């Protein structure tokens, strides 16, 4: 009997607010993830995707401006970097790592991995890990699969083999999970309790869905809604003692007219004295040590069963 297979990826209930612990008695974890992939189609970044003003801005002026803000506020971010972007902009990516930011993997070319065979996905995964390791001198511990603005759904693509392959390749965490607003374990095989730590993501705190979404010219500009969402979530999570994470795209947030709203938001965050500013890798490291799957994952026997005349 499948254990709620194809319905759930983890336990029946999240960790209670009162059980959450952050380092040094901090109250709430705060993360910024920067996506370095320019907009592309499901096949991933194609040559023409790099020959646009947006793509250029995202890796030059927009990135500089965003880094300026992160520096001023002393925030170390996680950069989700497709291997091809790291290869093309190796010095830039090395510079990010040298400045103390985390470099995490974001696919070989930010392709939709659910369209690939297991073997092809494994090959691309290995090539991505090798590229990022070679360029930064450190093996990435995290893997992201963030959505493209043209995707039908806002969660990012995960295939039938993705989680299993990430565990096989030794990744410590998967960066964008939607089933919780705390780190949680994504179980890909219930019998053997095979699982990967998954950090939370929610598209209401992702700039690309608010800034000329879905595309320049016809998209709508809602930066006020984005930052009202962020502020409301951060305040609520600070009270609960959980976590907040924001995803930014330099080609979008890097414009001066938008960056000013990010600065205001970071000013607001500064008013919360017990925030723990962490990269995703630091957050994952803390979680794996404090709430390991071995003790956290219950996977209690389920009353779930197959019924004739119903979906399995």
């Amino acid at each position, binding site marked *: 009997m499948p254990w*709620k297979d*194809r*319905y*759930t*990826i*983890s*336990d*029946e*209930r*999240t960790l209670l607010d009162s059980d959450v612990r952050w380092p040094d008695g901090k109250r709430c974890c705060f993360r910024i993830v920067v996506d370095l992939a320019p907009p592309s189609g499901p096949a991933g970044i194609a040559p023409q995707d790099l020959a646009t003003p947006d793509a250029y801005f995202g890796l030059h002026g927009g990135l500089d401006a965003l880094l300026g803000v992160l520096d001023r506020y002393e925030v170390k971010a996680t950069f989700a970097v497709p291997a091809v972007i790291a290869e093309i902009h190796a010095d830039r990516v090395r510079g990010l790592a040298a400045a103390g930011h985390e470099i995490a993997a974001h696919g070989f070319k930010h392709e939709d991995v*659910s369209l690939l065979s297991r073997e092809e996905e494994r090959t691309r995964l290995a090539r991505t890990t090798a590229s990022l390791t070679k360029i930064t001198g450190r093996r990435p511990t995290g893997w992201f699969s963030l959505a493209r*603005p*043209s*995707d*039908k*759904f*806002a*969660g*990012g*693509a*995960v*295939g*039938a083999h993705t989680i299993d392959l990430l565990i096989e390749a030794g990744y410590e965490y998967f960066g*964008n*999970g*939607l*089933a*919780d*607003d705390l780190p*949680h374990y994504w179980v890909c095989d219930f019998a053997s309790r095979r699982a990967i730590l998954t950090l939370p993501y*929610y*598209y*209401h705190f992702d700039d690309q*869905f*608010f800034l000329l*979404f*879905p595309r320049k010219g*016809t*998209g709508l500009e*809602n930066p*006020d*809604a*984005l930052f*009202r*969402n962020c502020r*409301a*979530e951060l*305040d*609520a*999570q600070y009270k*609960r003692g*959980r976590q907040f994470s924001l995803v930014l795209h330099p080609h979008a947030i890097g414009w001066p007219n938008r960056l000013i709203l990010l600065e205001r938001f970071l000013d607001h965050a500064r008013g919360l004295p017990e925030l723990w500013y962490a990269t995703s890798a630091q957050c994952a490291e803390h979680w794996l040590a404090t709430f390991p799957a071995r003790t956290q994952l219950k996977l209690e026997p*389920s*009353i*779930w*069963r197959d*019924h004739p*005349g*119903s*979906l399995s």
Partner: protein
Amino acid sequence: MDSSSEFTHELDRDLAALEAKAADYAARHHRLATIAWPAGVRIAVNFTADFDAMLLRRVLNEPPQQLAKGEFGGRVGIWRLIELFDSHAIKATIFTPGRICELYPQAVKAAAKSGHEIADHMWEHQVPKDPVLERDHLRKAKDAIETLTGRRPVGTRSWHTRELLIEEGFVYNSHDSADALPHYVSGADGSGALINLPFHYAIDDAMFFSFAWLNSDNQAQRMMDPDHVEEIWWAAFQQQYAQGGYLNICMHPFVSGRALRIAMLDRLITRMKALPGVWFPTCEQVARHVVAAHPAS
């Protein structure tokens, strides 16, 4: 017959068909001009949650991250809604698919224990076309809820056929919105009337916060913030409060259970509670009251 009179006949036939359809639909819907609420009550507010979690996403065969988005409702969101309503001593109605009872038995039991109504939301969030299977699904859902809560559900939010619902002992449906107030839906001859507690799609969290809801295009996404929606819903409440009416706020635990929206709902409830005569019953209480005070004619 010349061509002009042929055209005229065609138009007459069109008009007759339209008149017949409109008359049939009207004969099945029966409005109540006003509702006489219990003494001291000015407005009834039903907080209702459709506890689909990932079930509808699964039925539509959506990809893993969509299922995970729904899973939030079962792991996290439902618990927060229970906690929120309990903190305000509000009894809510949780429309629960039968399969959810197998996926999240702890949450369903906890909600029932707090006194919230657990009502039907179809066995697996769809109604089979085959009448035998339809009855089988409805009974399975009823049994699943009764097994966990010890109470047979009397309400539903579903596309189930009215006749079947009545046969199976259901007292109300809360689906669609042919009128702003509770109203009856019956057969064309007025027989088999069942009370409907309407919820409007603009008083539904998913319409404002759920990406790709009802297959919407990316151009049509509603990525709104809670402040904006709080004001839309507050205005709706004030309007109904002024005339002594009814409001049904439809939530989904995977949407409203997010921390920023729980905080918004907390503010909204606090504003409502500051006024006299605001009643927060379960849907069952509203349905039983309306049926007693305004029986189907």
